[in-house]
């Protein structure tokens, strides 16, 4: 029996584990929690017992540290030879020509329109909708019920939270966070954070252009 190791932490680890378990009754699905140390570093020893020949890994860390913790674990798994097939819920409506990358999670009743690209390590939660020809770069986090129009480009590591509606043809910058429940109808600069606890967006200036 092939193994499916769902590796990560927090509520999202639980969610992904149960999703895999329900979807893959013929696999041995296991949940593996990764400990974070004093300085929030990940304990990668979890991989020592896992063999890409006998199973596949799925990385399930949430949006913590701007999705960089999931990215770190994803890279560690990639180096160790895991294929990290995406999870696509049976009830999701994914267009036949949509491209879905490694370690992508597509939750139940999510809709992904034709011509969409969802790059590796991105998460599209339950009920989120992606209009036609939209493009999510890597390690993006889309919360339940988010509505994204068509032709939208979402930069790597961006976060779009429940309640956000993104108009068609908008560009959301890298590492931006759309956390205010509202309509976004202008382009959002890289690293701009709309956090519900704040009165104004948080901006970053003079960052290095090479940063992803």
């Amino acid at each position, binding site marked *: 029996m092939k193994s499916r190791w769902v590796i990560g932490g927090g509520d999202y680890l639980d969610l992904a584990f149960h999703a895999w378990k329900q979807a893959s009754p013929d696999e041995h699905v296991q949940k593996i929690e990764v400990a974070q140390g004093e300085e*929030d570093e990940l304990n990668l020893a979890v991989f020592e017992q896992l063999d890409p020949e006998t199973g596949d890994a799925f990385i399930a860390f949430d949006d913590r540290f701007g999705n960089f913790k999931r990215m770190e674990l994803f890279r560690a798994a990639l180096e160790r030879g895991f294929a990290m097939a995406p999870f696509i819920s049976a009830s999701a409506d994914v267009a036949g020509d949509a491209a879905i990358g490694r370690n992508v999670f597509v939750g139940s009743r999510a809709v992904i329109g034709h011509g969409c690209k969802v790059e590796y390590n991105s998460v599209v939660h339950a009920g989120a909708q992606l209009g036609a020809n939209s493009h999510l770069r890597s390690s993006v986090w889309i919360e339940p019920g988010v509505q994204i129009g068509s032709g939208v480009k979402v930069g790597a590591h961006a976060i779009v939270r429940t309640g956000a509606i993104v108009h068609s043809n908008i560009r959301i910058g890298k590492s931006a966070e759309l956390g205010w429940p509202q309509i976004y109808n202008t382009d959002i600069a890289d690293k701009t*954070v709309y956090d519900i606890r704040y009165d104004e967006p948080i901006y*970053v200036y003079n*960052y290095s252009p090479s940063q992803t």
Partner: protein
Amino acid sequence: MQSRMHPKYYLSQEIFDREQAKIFRKVWLFAGLASLVSENNSYLTRKIAGVPVVIQNFKGELKAFENICLHRSAPLQQGFCGRRALVCPYHAWSYDSSGAVRQIPDCDALYRFNDGERQSLKLREFALQQVGSLLFINLSSDPMPLETQFSDKFIKLLEDSSKQYDTEVMFTTWHASFNWKLVYENLRDLNHVRYIHPKSLGQALKFQKHASDIFIDEAAGPLTDLSPAGLRTEMRRFSQAGAEDAEYAQARHYAWMDMVEPWRGTDGYYNWLAYPNLHIASGTGGYSFSIENHVPVSPGKTDVEIYYFTAKKKQPYATSHQVLLSHMHYSKKVVGEDIAILEAVQSALHPDAPMPSQGAYETQNRLVERWYTTLMETGHEI
């Protein structure tokens, strides 16, 4: 000891206007970071004491002007910062580094200004001074020297530490419902830390509990020298820098600290308090800094502008903005605790509210109050 701060100083529009005229349009105020205007044509816009200001880089030279076009009063530059020549977006009047009109499109055909009219078109310019990475502005037509407002030691410490600021800056604004003076009073009162921040700042830093060593209430009597020079000298005492009597409960090390060159001025909680409305702090022993700028909006409203940055990075790294965001969220928690109690104080104030009673440890605030009420209640100026 009874405070001099009658509730009206926190509630009255008339007092607020007097403060703006007698303090905010007379003293040096923090205007921004030089790293945000480091390129030719880059600019910052600010509203200083109600006056819209643009700080513009002209081939390396920084100038501050009133941000209002002399033609139809449109703002010349818009947004917090950006990069664009000093040209009005409305009818394309452009200005040079002296504030004079450089070009008016179709001037002869449409406007028919004579030479005298044209030469008189000059933006109001304000004094601007750079201290390390910090910009200070003075709206007065006859500004006092910066060295009058701040001591040499204070300026040197600002300069030295701010040279170590990284250029990547995180910025946001909180709209708080309290009078701006409540903030500096709170910042000059460390006794609140263990009650207001028991689980945040009070956990990370142990402020020493010590009896007040002030035995003479210097502020008991009136100010003696009421000349502008005397009042300026007194004001200089309100701006201070130094390490607080605080010890790290646990000197935590984070991975990002290896990525930066810290300012080697301190191991503890370092504070720069610049009267009237600037607070710079490094709670990480010189590895990172925050700037709080408390901008009075109305008697009951203050914009708290927050800048976050680390010490200079050794080299760019991918998650640096996330490090800043973690700082920002932590500070949101700590300063949020301050804002909550200060908003509660403001909400309870009314014209007949009791005058505050102060203890010996509040001597700094008592000195500021004596100076402030003298300025508000008499015709004396700084």
